């Protein structure tokens, strides 16, 4: 057997390797010069929340035991209701919220990243395991009413103008202002980590939170998402959205299944 002489050896190949090495060196030099010119002063760092959605955090937050959460939840039921639906408007309904958002809010209360006179002292007494257990319990509570319950609930009467404003924002958002549709993150069309479902939330609480996001008293959203959106909403739009979500899944004209 006689083998052919490889093509890439000899003087021509040497220059080819030289070209390769040169281009690599040039690439590295570009990187170094870029990093050298970026020496600059950083402003003081504000950290909105200590929670970051790493694999480890998600494992901790979703690894709770719902039965232990049930035992701990006797402290919560005084304000948030025995079935996760509160009697008072300003207090959020926790039934059926997902584990990650419950975990994040309790962690932020505990770290002082979200302020509340009622919740901060309570959350400071909870461990990571307690928080995961509570999140597991509340996420398992049903959001639909008991089918055997025959009481007639008064249906809220919605303002038609407000409803149309809200439906437009919920379904389409407003591209001209860069406002994404609410349902892309808060369900039911899509969910992102840490964004709670708003389907069964009460309206007064939602209106308060939107106000707090826009005046800066609540700033625990990661990467300025909610502050950027809510700051562009007018007062009428905030009220409309709160009324729309607060009216519950039944009165939304079949928008929410």
């Amino acid at each position, binding site marked *: 057997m006689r083998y052919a002489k490889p093509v*890439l050896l000899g003087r021509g190949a040497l220059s080819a390797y030289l070209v390769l090495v040169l281009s690599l060196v040039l690439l590295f030099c570009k990187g170094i010069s870029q990093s050298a010119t970026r020496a600059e002063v950083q402003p003081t760092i504000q950290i909105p929340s200590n929670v970051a959605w790493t694999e480890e955090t998600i494992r901790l937050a979703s690894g709770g035991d719902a039965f232990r959460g049930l035992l701990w939840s006797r402290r919560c039921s005084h304000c948030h209701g025995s079935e996760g639906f509160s009697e008072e408007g300003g207090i959020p309904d926790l039934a059926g919220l997902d584990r990650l958002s419950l975990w994040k809010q309790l962690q932020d209360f505990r770290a002082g990243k979200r302020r509340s006179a009622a919740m901060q002292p309570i959350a400071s007494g909870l461990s990571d395991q307690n928080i995961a257990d509570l999140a597991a319990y509340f996420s398992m509570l049903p959001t639909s009413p008991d089918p055997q319950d025959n009481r007639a609930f008064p249906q809220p009467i919605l303002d038609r103008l407000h409803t149309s404003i809200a439906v437009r924002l919920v379904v389409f958002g407003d591209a001209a202002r860069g406002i994404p549709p609410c349902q892309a993150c808060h369900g039911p069309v899509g969910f992102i980590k840490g964004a709670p479902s708003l389907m069964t939330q009460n309206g007064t609480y939602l209106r308060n939170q939107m106000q707090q996001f826009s005046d800066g008293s609540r700033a625990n959203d990661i990467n300025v998402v909610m502050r950027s959106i809510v700051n562009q909403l007018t007062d009428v739009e905030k009220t409309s959205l709160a009324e729309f979500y607060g009216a519950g899944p039944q009165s939304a004209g079949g928008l929410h299944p």
Partner: protein
Amino acid sequence: MNASSSLQSTNASPPGMLRKGGGFILSVVLLGLTLLALRYYEVDLPIYSLLEGHNRVDPAELHLSGEFVESNLGTAVNADGSYTVRMIAQQYLFVPQCIVVPAGVPVQFRVTSADASHLLSFSGTPYSIQAAPGYVSTAELTFDREGQFPMPCRRFCGPGHYAMRAQLKVVNRDQLANLRPYERITCALR
């Protein structure tokens, strides 16, 4: 037997072009084709980042440390008088939502993504910047015309993609003359 002998004969006598300095031409052509292919298939980003090294970030922890913390976003002036803009693309929002850049001066963009792959495009120009989670995409762009231009996302990133749009405000350079080194400016409502 016949097949192997014919193979040997073709190997034993390469075309004349490859024998005298042909290796050089061949490798240059191959290198050029490779670079073109990298551009075309948009795999330039990971490879260049790997070579440069410092352009890696953790997409889940942007808000905790590093250059993409929320107080560092927006337009900054560097020590040498050049401008740097830092933005985060995420589902379904660019932060900051409105950025201010000077006209007629090259501006360095540093964009990363917190979740999916996004494409920050500049309406009215052929430019766009790909934002991929874990990597910082850099681009040096110059805007000549003053005014306000939309910057939509041009890669489908989820159900809220169609409303994902930021604004670019190109202003006279004098308006940014008094920017301090620790200041970051945007035109987003905060």
